C-alpha cells in the first residue's frame, strides 16, 4: 500500500467529509446542491473503478451480436462507439426483428444496461 491516498481514496474521503460535515449544516438549495455533488462524486468513483471493464464486456456482447453481419477482420472490432452505431442501424433496419435475433439482442442489451446502472445508480438494480 502506498503512503499517500490514491485517487479513489481521495475521492471517497472527500465525499465522506461532504456528507458527514457539510450536508448536516446545510438546508434548502444548498443542501440539495451538496447532495448532487456527493452523487456526482460517487458516480465518478464507480466509473473510474468499473467503467473500463464494463466497456470491455459491452464490446464483447456487441461483437457477438454482429458476428454474422461484419467480417472477422473488421478494423472497428474494439471500438465501442462504432459497434453501437452498427447495432443501432441494424435494429432500425429491422435486421434483428425475427425471434432468433431479437431474443439474444434484448438479453445482451439488458446485460449491458445492468452493467451501466451498477455504475450510474446501483440502488436502482432490482432482482
Amino acid at each position, binding site marked *: 500500500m502506498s503512503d499517500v491516498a490514491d485517487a479513489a481514496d481521495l475521492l471517497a474521503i472527500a465525499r465522506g467529509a461532504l456528507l458527514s460535515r457539510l450536508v448536516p449544516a446545510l438546508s434548502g438549495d444548498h443542501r440539495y*446542491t451538496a447532495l*448532487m455533488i456527493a452523487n456526482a462524486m460517487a*458516480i465518478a468513483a464507480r466509473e473510474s473503478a468499473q467503467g473500463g471493464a464494463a466497456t470491455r464486456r459491452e464490446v464483447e456482447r456487441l461483437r457477438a451480436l454482429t458476428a454474422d453481419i461484419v467480417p472477422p477482420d473488421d478494423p472497428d472490432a474494439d471500438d465501442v462507439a462504432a459497434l453501437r452505431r452498427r447495432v*443501432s*442501424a441494424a435494429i432500425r433496419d*429491422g435486421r434483428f426483428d425475427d425471434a432468433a435475433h431479437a431474443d439474444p439482442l434484448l438479453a445482451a442489451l439488458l446485460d449491458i444496461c445492468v452493467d451501466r446502472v451498477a455504475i*450510474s445508480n446501483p440502488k436502482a438494480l432490482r432482482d
Partner: protein
Amino acid sequence: MTVSAPDVDDVATKSSAALAAWLRAQMDATDVRIRCFERMRGGAIQDNWRLDVAVDGGPWQGEHAFVLRTDAPSQVSASLTRAQEFAVLRVAHDAGVLAPAPRFLCEDAHILGRMFFIMDRLPGVAAGHRLTREGALLPDAPALAHALGANLARIHALRPPLAGMPDAPRNPALETIAMYRRWLDAFDDTYPALELGLRWCERHAPANFEVTLIHRDYRTGNYLVDDGKLTGALDWEFAGFGDPREDLGWFTARCWRFAAPQHEAGGIAPLAPFLDGYASVAGRRFSAEDLAYWQVMAHLRWAIIALQQARRHRSEPSLELALTGWIVDELECEALRLIAETPA
C-alpha cells in the same frame, strides 16, 4: 434547480417598474405595486417567478398571488411557445380542468426581455420526492389518485382542432417514434437500447387509437396538492394532440414514481383508483397492456430528453444537467425490462 444566468436577479429589479406599468394597463388600474417578484425553484426549461401585486382601481382591485412564466434561455425540442401554452391553458381551464387560471399574456419582449404570461398561483406542494415520501401530505392517497385520473380525462375530452396548436397527428404512435428518431439522430453517439425500444414500439404500434389533447408531462412533480387535495396540473409546455394513453403511460411509468416505485399511480397510490377516476369522466378504462406499451414509450421519451439536457451541459455547464445524463442507463434498463415482460 438550474444555476441562474448571471443577469437574472438584475432582470427582476430593472424589470419591476416596466412590469408594473404593463400590468396597470392590462388591469385597467390606477396603480399596481409589485410586492414580490422573485424566481421560483424548478423547471430546467421554463423560468417561473413568484409575483405578488397590490392593485388600486379597476376590476382587479386588491391583492393577487400570481406566477409569471417565461422562457428560460434555452429550450427543449417540441415545447410550446408561451403564447401557445397560454392558449392551451385557457382552453383547459375553461373546460373545467384543474389548472392555474391564465390571466395575462405578454408577447412584447421589451417588457422583460422575453415573452411571458401570468397565471394564478395555486396553493400546494408539487415536489415528487415529498409527495411520495411524506404520508402526512396525502391523508387520502386513493382519493387524490382518483382526482388525478378524473382531471386527466377532462383534458382528454378536448379534441382537435384548437386555434394556435400544431395539427393533430394521423398516427400518434408512429409519428412520435419518427420524431424520437430524429432527436436521436441529432446526437453524436448512438443508443442501441433506445433503438430497440423504438423498433419494438413501431412493431407493436396500436392499430386503434383516438387523438385528443394530451398534456405530455402529467406526472407527480407537476401537480399541486394542498391539504391532501389536487389543486391543479402544472407545466403545460409539452401539450399537444396525441394518443391519450401516452399521458396514462407517462403518469404511471416507474421513472415518475420517485421514492415509492411500488405505487403504480405516480408513486402515490395503486393503479385502480387512478383508472377509476379516469373512467368516471371518460366512461372507459384502458387496459394494463395499453399502459405497458405507453410506459415503454415514456421511458424512451424521458431518456431522449435526458440526453438532450445532458448535451446542454456542454454549452451551459450545470451540475444538474450533467447528472441528468447519468439517469439514461436506468431509463433504458426499465424500457428493456418492460419489453422483456410483455408477451410477444
